[in-house]
């Protein structure tokens, strides 16, 4: 199964339990609008874009994004996150073409 490159970043890299950090989810995706024409064939390139992103901590969802084709290619989405303690972040995504995927990152507070 083809796997699209995606990753989760936490800023700052060092944080404590109770601190609010910024979590970014980045994914390599064309975010095709469905309004562009292929130069050679003249045919419309079909819409192909990430339309949903969900953030989970230890299996519990805490943020859901509904996304449309106006978001830039290779999108980045950043939200806040209050660190509850040690655990696992997971981000899942879906596209309008039915593609799905997920990525994870451990949350390791110092103190």
């Amino acid at each position: 199964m083809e796997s699209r490159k995606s990753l989760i970043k936490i800023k700052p890299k060092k944080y404590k339990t109770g601190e609010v950090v910024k979590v970014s989810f980045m994914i390599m995706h064309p975010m095709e609008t469905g309004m562009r024409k292929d130069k050679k064939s003249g045919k419309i390139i079909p819409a192909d874009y990430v339309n949903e992103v969900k953030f989970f901590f230890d299996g519990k969802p805490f943020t859901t994004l509904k996304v449309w084709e106006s978001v830039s290619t290779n999108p980045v989405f950043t939200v806040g996150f209050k660190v509850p303690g040690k655990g696992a972040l997971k981000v899942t995504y879906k596209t309008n073409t039915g593609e799905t995927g997920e990525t994870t990152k451990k949350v390791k507070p110092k103190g």
Partner: protein
Amino acid sequence: MKRRTFLQTVGLAAAAGAVVTPSIAFAADKPKGPNEMGIDAALKAVTGGQKITPSEKVHLKAPEIAENGAVVPVTVEVDSPMTPDDYVKAIHVFATKNSNVRTADVMLTPANGIAMFATRIKLGSTQEVLVVAETSKGEFLSASQSIKVTIGGCG
């Protein structure tokens, strides 16, 4: 469909397409996106017709001039305690002149700690970006900013 809306959406589909791929010349039949929606319809869908109030609590950070209309950074922050009885439950970001004005809806919870969202969007032309924050108390607060997009031309 109202004539004004029809003309707006046809024109905007062309403009949006032109910025996304400046090298493609536009033929007589301008491609329309599959998700066309104007700002009035989008706001009604989000608020159910309820009042939207511009508020200083909603901070929208975006460039006044977009160097590249395909990648315009937008950051929204809303002043909120983000406690279970008082938090921002959604942030909606609209590109008011794109053929589909919706870019992202962000459903937040107190676990976020702060009401904040950042991403990069495509703008088909110079336009206002409008953000609407929905609070757990049922208020709709907004902020907007005009962004100039220079289309076509190298450099």
